[in-house]
């Protein structure tokens, strides 16, 4: 059993035109920087991307958008990206907006082998259009189907060669959820360690979900909203 790849290019070698990819991260926090760069380099086309956000103009998924590699974007929030706006208005880009909790849950249930769930978000809004509704205890729910992906690409803090992952702070976000939902899940990690180096009691994503893993490099970890406070004298 060897899940270890030497770099992003090798880990994504069989990602081809037209596939569906999930990408972890919230904003620019915890995004799989190495794999995104490799996808840009490979120049695969016609991708359907499922990701909470769409990056910014020159970073994250924005890099794939700029090269028009994305055919369809499924996300909850895509602000702060002028190229995105241009492609959307020109009809080059198809967009499906999904409430953030619904997005997370639709990925999660794929990893639980659950085909759909009833969720509250979006009842009475345009999100509900065309969706089946059910009632329980006087509340209305929308039937939401699981999101599956040909490839799920996640970024973790540390991972071992068996694929067990731990995330750092709020970089966990969608990474831990999407890791379970890929037909093939690729994890890039800041530090790749040997089995036994991670405490089994504190694994965020068990290795059974991870098909490929590699140690990434040159993480930029760009901050979107740099907010600090002054130190008292």
């Amino acid at each position, binding site marked *: 059993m060897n899940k270890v790849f030497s770099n992003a290019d090798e880990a994504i070698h069989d990602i081809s035109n037209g596939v569906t990819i999930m990408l972890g991260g919230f904003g620019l926090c915890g995004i799989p920087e190495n794999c995104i760069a490799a996808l840009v380099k490979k120049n695969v086309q016609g991708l359907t991307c499922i990701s909470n956000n769409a990056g910014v103009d020159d970073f994250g998924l924005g890099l794939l958008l700029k090269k028009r590699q994305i055919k369809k974007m499924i996300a909850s929030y895509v602000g702060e990206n002028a190229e995105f706006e241009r492609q959307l208005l020109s009809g080059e880009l198809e967009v499906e907006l999904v409430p*953030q909790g619904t997005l*997370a849950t639709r990925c999660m249930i794929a990893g639980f082998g659950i085909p759909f769930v009833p969720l509250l978000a979006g009842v*009475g*809004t345009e999100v509900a259009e065309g969706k089946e509704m059910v009632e329980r205890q006087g509340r209305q729910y929308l039937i939401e189907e699981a999101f599956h992906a040909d490839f799920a690409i996640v970024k973790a803090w540390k991972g071992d060669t068996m694929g067990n992952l731990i995330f750092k702070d709020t970089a966990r976000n969608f990474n831990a959820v999407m890791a379970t939902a890929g037909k093939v899940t690729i994890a890039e990690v800041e530090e790749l360690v040997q089995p036994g180096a991670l405490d089994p009691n504190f694994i965020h994503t068990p290795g059974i979900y991870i098909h490929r893993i590699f140690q990434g490099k040159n993480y930029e970890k760009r901050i979107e909203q740099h907010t600090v406070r002054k*130190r008292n004298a």
Partner: protein
Amino acid sequence: MALSKEQIAQRIARELQDGFYVNLGIGIPTLVANYIPEGISVVLQSENGLLGMGPFPFEGEEDPDMINAGKQTVTKLPGSAIFDSATSFGMIRAGKVDLTVLGAMEVADNGDIANWKIPGKMVKGMGGAMDLVAAAKNIIVAMQHTNPKGHSKLLPQCSLPLTGVQCVRKIVTDLGVFSITGQGFHCDERAPGVSVQEIKEKTAGRLSIADDVPEMVF
């Protein structure tokens, strides 16, 4: 005089109760954290996966892996917990968050809220707003009473695409505090120096307001 944004936040902070788990949206709601009353302990939830959000980090201590739902660098307080996005919205949906404070473009007198989309303009997406308003037990809207054109944002019905239906419980604007009663907006308090007449004129939806409605004290 109409309330400042800081005062709106300050007034909302009075709604906090000891032990509350609170989700604060971007903008005025974020300011509420600055006015938590003495002797009360609340825990801030950020829907990207954090309970126990602390203040912004000191310069030089910011960590790109430690942000809030507004993508701002933040800190975590002792006793905080990190979790994934599905768990985060799971706890919201299950009603574990006691209070959600968020902004709005429009609120209808039946509690409908619109705050995510202006047709014809750029659509940024709803983010977590639809999840929050659909699930939170207690939703307070923090907003200006009128839009930049001077039109009321408290309406008989929303003109913009909805974020959620019949979910808002209370609104704090620069002019006062309003409950949603089932018979429309009920003015609970007016801002210092703001007249009952002005509130009536600037509220387009159904409004009940007493001539002697109490004035807020700061």
